[in-house]
């Protein structure tokens, strides 16, 4: 049983609730104990660091301080939280003045952070702690040749990825193929989906997404698999907007890696939140059910 301190991140309680469900379902089968960090709050996130440096580091630092008490690695499935928490940790190490300010603030609220927490993304854990061989053993209903475009997005591998290439990441390939699925070429696999610009500068984000969907479809993908709540929301929920804006007809389900994994483990769809996907994956998955079960 591997134990970790677990930081779901805000999205997993709402827009990406399916991610939260599938992560829990899958980790149970893989004997990963994810102990949810008590009283965790927002990671601080990009918007906050654009608003106020000190506050954003404090807010992220608070979660780090809580995690430090558990003595466990802090795992999050959310790429944005992952990069934000890592950023705060490295900022606190790189900038002494910031560190002293933050510790002053923390003292006043009975917190302390010594910089001992290792922030890790779920993908890192699956790849390097659980390891693909073990995951493969748990596959009961392999997909047969489901063609998947692995979408990494940005913040899983940038600015500083400890476990994959920042521009040509490979880590998902192995994790997807062991499920019996096929990985299609996807040149834009680590290009940006527009992130939060979808809210403030919708046109910009939507045109970025169009390129991604185009690249995925033209390379023969039947669905996109991602590990970032925001990427999934953008590509899934806003796919219709792309279609209406550019007169396209993309119909690409966008699944979380853990949803795909859960299916292969034989977990029933409801428990993986498949009903939460706006672009329904039902049809595509059905085509591969023949060979399954």
């Amino acid at each position, binding site marked *: 049983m591997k134990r970790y301190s677990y930081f779901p991140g*805000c*999205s997993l*309680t709402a*827009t990406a*609730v*399916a991610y939260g469900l599938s992560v829990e379902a899958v980790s149970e089968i893989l004997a990963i104990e994810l102990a949810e960090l*008590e*009283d*965790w*709050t*927002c990671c601080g*996130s*990009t*918007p*906050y*660091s*654009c*608003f*106020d*440096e*000190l*506050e954003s*580091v*404090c*807010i992220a630092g*608070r979660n780090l301080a*809580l995690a430090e008490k558990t003595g466990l690695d802090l795992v999050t499935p959310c790429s944005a939280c992952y990069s934000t928490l890592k950023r705060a940790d490295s*900022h606190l190490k*790189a900038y002494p003045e*910031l560190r002293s*300010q933050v510790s*002053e*603030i923390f003292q*006043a*609220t009975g*917190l302390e952070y010594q910089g001992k927490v290792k922030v890790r993304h779920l993908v890192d854990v699956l790849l390097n702690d659980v390891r693909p061989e073990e995951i493969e053993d748990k596959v009961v209903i392999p997909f047969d040749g489901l063609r998947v475009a692995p979408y990494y997005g*940005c*913040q899983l591998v*940038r*600015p500083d990825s400890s476990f994959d290439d920042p*521009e040509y990441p490979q880590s998902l390939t192995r994790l997807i193929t062991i499920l019996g699925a096929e990985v299609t070429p996807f040149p834009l696999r680590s*290009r*940006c989906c527009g*992130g*939060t*610009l979808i*809210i*403030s*500068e919708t046109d*910009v*984000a939507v045109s*970025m997404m169009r390129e991604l969907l185009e690249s995925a479809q033209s390379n023969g993908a039947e669905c996109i698999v991602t590990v970032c709540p925001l990427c999934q*929301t953008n590509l899934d*929920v*806003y796919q*219709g*907007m792309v279609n209406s804006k550019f007169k396209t007809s993309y119909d690409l389900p966008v699944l979380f890696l853990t949803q795909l994994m859960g299916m292969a483990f034989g977990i029933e769809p409801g428990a993986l939140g498949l*009903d*939460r996907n*706006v672009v329904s994956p039902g049809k595509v998955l059905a085509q591969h059910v023949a060979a399954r079960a």
Partner: protein
Amino acid sequence: MANQAYQVTVEEDGFVDEVCSVPGGECVNWCVQCGMCAASCPSVSWMDHSPRKMIALIRAERRQDVLASNSMGFCASCYLCTVRCPKGVKVTELMHVLESLAVRHGVTNGRTATPAMHRAFVESVKSDGRIHEFGFMRRFYLKTNPLAALKMIPLGLKMFSHGRLPLRAKKAGGTDQLRAIVKKAEALGGAK
């Protein structure tokens, strides 16, 4: 002299120092103006000034031109510029730094809604400890562009019907401590 025209618009000195004083800002001194960041940026075509030019303007002490530009508002934080920069400039970080400076100086830009979105986000975090997407989006749209809010209704419904948009916010356990921290940070010179 030809560059007199520029001299007129040169702001009072100290902007470079100010940028450098914020964690992540010091890297403006390393830039060689090669434009790798600009050519790697997915949203550069929407920006008033490319990231490279932003650094040039900073070095020219053009505070107003920098802080009033929409460039930060179009940064998607994809960090492609950062990993490619041949001089190790953390361009994305810099964009965040500049936006926070704009907030501090109360400089706003009419042509990007991103800062308003960020503010709405921050307010949501401060009130509930976690981000409550529905509340935050509603707050944002109503503040910036109620019409857009209307356009968003079908989309919101779509998410709602898929159980992805809880309407009521749940206050997170750590909220009070978080607020205390923020208060202290503000006292220490964080943005109001």
